[in-house]
């Protein structure tokens, strides 16, 4: 049973420590804002200057002035604050993000990753990814372990233009949780029923236990 996106979100959220400032990117990572954290308290930051947001707004109660990085209408928690884009990225580049969680096309053994440009495309979508990747204390990725045609996305080196050099801390995929080691990836956790061999077969570089 591979992890669902919800399970990947929950597994990464287990890594969050009490008091962290957590930036969530577009797409899959937005699921994390809804994961219960128990006694731990984190503050979610969105690149568009929203500090301290909560779950996505129930249908019919949307505030159309308020979106997260993915453009979803969200709620604000007590103690929230709004800043403009330059101040928001000042917080990012200033090292205030304990972690950023992003989607990615590829992750590499050397900690590089790629998430802004697909093969053969003219143009791409960077958004805040390069700022976040360069300056957050930790970079967590959430991604499918293989492409739709079954090719590995965890590689020795990225084949797509990278987002940042050597910054990846953890990668959550449908098969488990992995950390780049320089030479390959170390398994931190496996999805129920997934095996080390299965992870090795799905990965284009060494996978260690």
């Amino acid at each position, binding site marked *: 049973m591979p992890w669902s996106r919800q399970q990947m979100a929950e597994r990464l959220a287990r890594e969050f420590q009490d008091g962290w400032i957590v930036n969530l990117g*577009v*797409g899959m990572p937005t699921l994390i804002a809804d994961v219960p954290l128990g006694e731990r308290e984190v503050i979610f930051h*969105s*690149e*568009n*200057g*929203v500090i301290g947001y909560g779950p996505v707004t129930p249908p019919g109660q*949307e*505030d*159309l*002035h*308020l*979106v997260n990085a993915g*453009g979803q*209408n969200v709620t*604000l928690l007590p103690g929230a604050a*709004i*800043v*403009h*884009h*330059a101040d*928001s*990225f000042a917080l*990012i*580049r200033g090292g205030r993000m304990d972690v950023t969680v992003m989607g990615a096309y590829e992750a590499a053994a050397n900690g590089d990753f790629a998430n802004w*440009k*697909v093969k053969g*495309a*003219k*143009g*791409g*979508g*960077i*958004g*805040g*990814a*390069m*700022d976040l990747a*360069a*300056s957050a204390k930790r970079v967590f990725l959430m991604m499918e372990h293989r492409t739709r045609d079954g090719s590995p996305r965890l590689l020795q080196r990225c084949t797509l*233009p*990278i*987002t*940042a*050099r050597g910054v990846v801390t953890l990668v959550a995929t449908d098969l488990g949780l992995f950390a780049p080691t320089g030479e390959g990836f170390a398994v931190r956790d496996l999805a129920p029923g997934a095996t080390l061999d299965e992870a090795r077969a799905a990965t284009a570089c060494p996978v260690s236990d």
Partner: protein
Amino acid sequence: MARRSKVVADFDAAVADIPDGATIAIGGFAQPGVPFNLVAALGRQGAKRLTCIANTTGGAHKPRMPDIGMLVENGQVAKVVCSFTAGTRASDVLPFTPYYERGEVDAEIVPQGTLAERLRAAGAGIPAFYTPTAVGTELAEGRETRVINGREYLLEYALPVDVALLRAHQADEAGNLRFRRSQRNFNPLMAMAAKLVLVEVEQPILPAGAIDPDDVHTPGILVHRLVQVPPPPDGIWPMKREAR
């Protein structure tokens, strides 16, 4: 300082004198803070060979709202400067995309934080600065970097603007602006960067002095023209996005 009002009659009057070749910055992130009505007016006005700066070229979502893509389709745009020049999904084809692929419109892709900081720098008299963002990527190829305290940084230049099109929640006649929630985004920075600042305002425009000086987000001395957004259907307002 309150004698003169900056309120103008309508959106068409606000954009009437934008010349061909101007550099236009358009506020907003997703829908909040996008000056839909001023963008639509610029489309009607027809200025050509524009350089358009915004977070995205727009058009990835439904319903379609006025955006740079619309100005591109209208033949008004020479170049865009954006943090997205393609959609966030590989399958997205933006209205802008075919024009870009055919080479009819040029594009400069800029990381979002660098875009914000370059706009601020233009408004702050800072001609250039160093940033860690994009070091080691394709965007830094052939460009100047510098090691400071052991870390490599990329040199980035200010991004000055001729005309900023903004959307605010409240304004007074002196031009002081307040934004609501994530409507703030790039708007205050584009006000800093631009020589001419045009603002569509959601609430009735207040007399000068009605906004407490401590609560002003963008000071009125940066703002030139204000237009109140009429209720729909005459005015264009944010709409709930369709799920996809």
